[in-house]
């Protein structure tokens, strides 16, 4: 895309502090009025290995991590070896000239080698080994023409007033780097305006947690698992203040069962995990469908199979979510396409869960959950719709039927503690009262019929869930040479690819994007795809799990499939290339 942007990359070993330096830069960009998008590539190790972060920022919204960087900070030699050749023409590489060599690396034209004794300089301000990152950061800030004062304010927020000396030392270190560049070539002259409204810089997981709080979530039971853990961390930090119980429990079996218990007892409750933990929740979540307890389960995907690549992204757990639990039960699956939707769809999930009294799964992935993105703000005016409660009146105590067969499939819900509405919630098939059919009634003709009615009742909720959720969004030109089908976090890179194809090739391409996966919106899909000239589904897995769902529901098979399963996020360029290949 032709819009002006800055792309910054920093790399080193785990523990070298790439992430926090990049975060500072991202904050500085945000406070400078830019839109920001970050991607962190790291590994499942605490020290060593190779990790790097990319920060991309521009005056207009940015939807992906971008491609080649203009500025690279190398915290160790492997970073130079791997990343230096990728730095763009007329870009710059910042490195400690005492420890790192760029000799022999093939650099693009005009790349400035900004090597100076970072480490030695840094030791003037602190004996913290990570201080050299701050010197490098200062250098980058100068290259990008940003303001040292903003850097200072960012540091002040990160460490707070209580750690004033740390802030001061860092500010001095940054100034030293800044000065070095000032005196050695100055700015890259990227021409971005650094002013304007500071927006919010937030990760998908933080937005999910905020959305939950806004929706009145009172209980989170979770077991740590990348990339879902930071939901728990953030919630735990804010829990006591907002009257939320946040529990790290013994395993994911406990997490889902506790969350369902809490939902049954009347609070909005949630759990969050990744595919491995969700695998352990399979039986429990099906239970929620049967006892008709509301619960929200966040499934933040990472690359499988099995333990797989714990720090890498994938959209490979859709089959898992679709198949979770025995038999058929009504579930909803939402997949936020971006950080903003992380907030909105999570909040919505709580309403759907309570209105339909059934588990709702919110699927994100490492790319979306952990990346920092800019959002304009959040609308905290989230409606809280608690659904049909026996307490709201209209429900007689004496013949209270917890599982009353209704047209919507939804029955009035009593909460423990409410006098006169005592009932049993059972995972065995039960009658309208909640009493067992399985133990002495199963197989007796009239009860066979009631069993069938209970199934029908529960499954009717899918109609309401479909009605209350939206069909896919068609984005881009009405008339297009190809329609790209995507779900969840693929939205960003895909939209950028579309813009690029339009701009660079004059190719009209649009996308059909799904945020509400299940119940599937078959009619809207069929209508939209009928108008499509050609279709390609783009998803982050091997088998095309979502395409298969789409075909199962509509009989339509996308003409092409572009699946990515190497653990890396989509890059706009590769989507565009694939489109060119397919159309060419």
């Amino acid at each position: 895309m032709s819009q002006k942007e800055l792309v910054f990359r920093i790399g080193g070993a785990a523990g070298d502090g790439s992430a926090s330096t990049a975060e500072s830069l991202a904050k500085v960009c945000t406070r400078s009025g830019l839109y920001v998008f970050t991607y962190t590539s790291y590994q499942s190790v605490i020290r060593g290995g190779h990790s790097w972060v990319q920060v991309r920022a521009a005056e207009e919204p940015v939807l992906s991590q971008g491609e080649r960087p203009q500025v690279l900070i190398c915290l160790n030699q492997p970073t130079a070896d791997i990343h230096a050749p990728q730095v763009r023409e007329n870009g710059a590489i910042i490195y400690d000239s005492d420890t790192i060599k760029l000799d022999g690396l093939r650099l693009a034209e005009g790349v400035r080698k900004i090597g100076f004794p970072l480490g030695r300089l840094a030791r003037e301000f602190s004996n913290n080994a990570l201080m050299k990152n701050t010197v490098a950061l200062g250098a980058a800030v100068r290259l990008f023409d940003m303001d040292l004062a903003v850097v200072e304010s960012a540091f002040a927020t990160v460490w707070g007033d209580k750690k004033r000396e740390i802030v001061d030392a860092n500010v001095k270190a940054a100034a030293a780097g800044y000065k070095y560049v000032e005196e050695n070539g100055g700015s890259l002259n990227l021409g971005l305006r650094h002013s304007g409204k500071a927006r919010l810089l937030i990760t998908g997981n933080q937005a999910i947690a905020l959305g939950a709080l806004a929706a009145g979530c009172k209980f989170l039971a979770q077991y740590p698992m990348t990339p879902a853990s930071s939901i728990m961390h953030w919630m735990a930090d804010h829990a006591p203040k907002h009257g939320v119980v946040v529990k790290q429990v013994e395993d994911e079996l406990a997490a889902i069962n506790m969350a369902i218990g809490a939902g049954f007892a009347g609070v909005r409750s949630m759990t969050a995990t990744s595919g491995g933990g969700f695998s352990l929740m399979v039986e429990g979540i099906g239970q929620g469908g049967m006892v008709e307890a509301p619960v929200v389960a966040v499934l933040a995907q990472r690359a499988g199979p099995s333990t797989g690549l714990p720090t890498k992204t994938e959209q490979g757990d859709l089959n898992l979510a679709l198949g979770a639990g025995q038999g058929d039960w009504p579930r909803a699956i939402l997949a936020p396409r971006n950080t903003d939707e992380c907030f909105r769809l999570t909040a919505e999930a709580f309403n759907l869960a309570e209105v339909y009294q059934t588990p709702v799964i919110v699927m994100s992935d490492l790319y979306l959950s952990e990346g920092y993105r800019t959002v304009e703000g959040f609308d905290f005016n989230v409606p809280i719709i608690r659904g049909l409660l026996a307490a709201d009146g209209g429900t007689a105590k004496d013949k209270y039927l917890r599982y009353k067969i209704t047209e919507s499939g939804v029955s009035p819900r009593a909460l423990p503690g409410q006098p006169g509405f005592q009932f049993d919630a059972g995972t065995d098939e039960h009658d309208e009262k909640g009493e067992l059919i399985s133990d002495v009634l199963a197989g007796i003709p009239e009860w066979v019929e009631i069993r069938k009615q209970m199934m029908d009742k529960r499954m009717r909720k899918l109609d309401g869930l479909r009605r209350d959720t939206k069909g896919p969004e068609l984005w881009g030109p009405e008339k297009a040479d190809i329609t790209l089908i995507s779900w969840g976090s693929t939205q960003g890179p895909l939209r950028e690819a579309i813009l690029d194809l339009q701009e660079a090739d004059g190719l009209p391409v649009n996308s059909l994007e799904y945020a509400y996966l299940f119940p599937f919106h078959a009619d809207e899909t069929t209508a939209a795809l009928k108008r499509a000239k050609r279709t390609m589904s783009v998803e982050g897995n091997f088998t095309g799990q979502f395409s298969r769902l789409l075909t199962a529901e509509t009989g339509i098979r996308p003409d092409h499939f572009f699946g990515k399963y190497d653990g890396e996020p989509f890059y706009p360029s590769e989507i565009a290339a694939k489109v060119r290949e397919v159309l060419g």
Partner: protein
Amino acid sequence: MSDGKTIELQEYKSEIKPTWCPGCGDFAVLSGLQKALQVLQIEPWNIVIVSGIGCSSNIPHFLSSYGFHSIHGRAVPVASGIKLANSDLTVIAAGGDGDGYGIGVGHFIHAMRRNLDITYIVMDNQIYGLTTGQASPTSEKGMVTKSTPEGVIENPVNPLTLALASGATYIARGFSGDAKGLGDLFARGIKHKGFSLIDVLSPCVTYNKINTYDWFRQRVYSLEKEGHNPSDYLAAVARADEWPNLDQKRDRIGLGVFYERNDIPTYEDLEPALKKGPLVRQPLGLANPEELLEEFR
């Protein structure tokens, strides 16, 4: 109790007739529990009984209270979620030895170390009843069952030493042959602030032909009568290790309270979010949401 009227025993009974085999030990547990609740005058609607799956786990249906007949092995986490959501409720988890000490033993251990104020009643018949007679974790070594035609070769789980090792603050053993004793142990356990385990020797008359009422009657004795001091941890371990144990000694089986201490705070006491009362009563939504956004600017 709220309106000063005494709640009658009848009010704890549901319309559903228990489906247990005639003579099943679980009948005594049911009536003991009803009696305990009545003695304590806890309103039926403020009680939630949570069970797993098994013959014993059908118990919620036979009591008039709120009930959650959960999945196999998960009664304790479901009960924990309920208690944390509404700490005003009296939450009782109940189920079988397979449910609690087999598939559910992990949750059991972690619940005890949390010391949530929950009462856990295990109807221990040393067999899998509902699945028609396989070995359970408390089946004794050598026992012939459908799944162990050559006899069990595992050493049995000892629920009491396990509980003593895991921080439960009320640990007792009852016997379905002693209905009165059961009611007392339940009442004391429910009153106890913190996690209470009551392991009940509750014979399965259909599938366990070894550990019968008679078998137990020949071996049980009252801890209290022998002067056991329930605040003495090591004494409790020694009593608990009398049966079952690695040596397969099985001549003395103590009944009553093995261990109790009341100086350990409950989980609810320590949980900061509950300082303002039960979660169900706290307002939904955010009072001052914009404050939360500061850190993201």
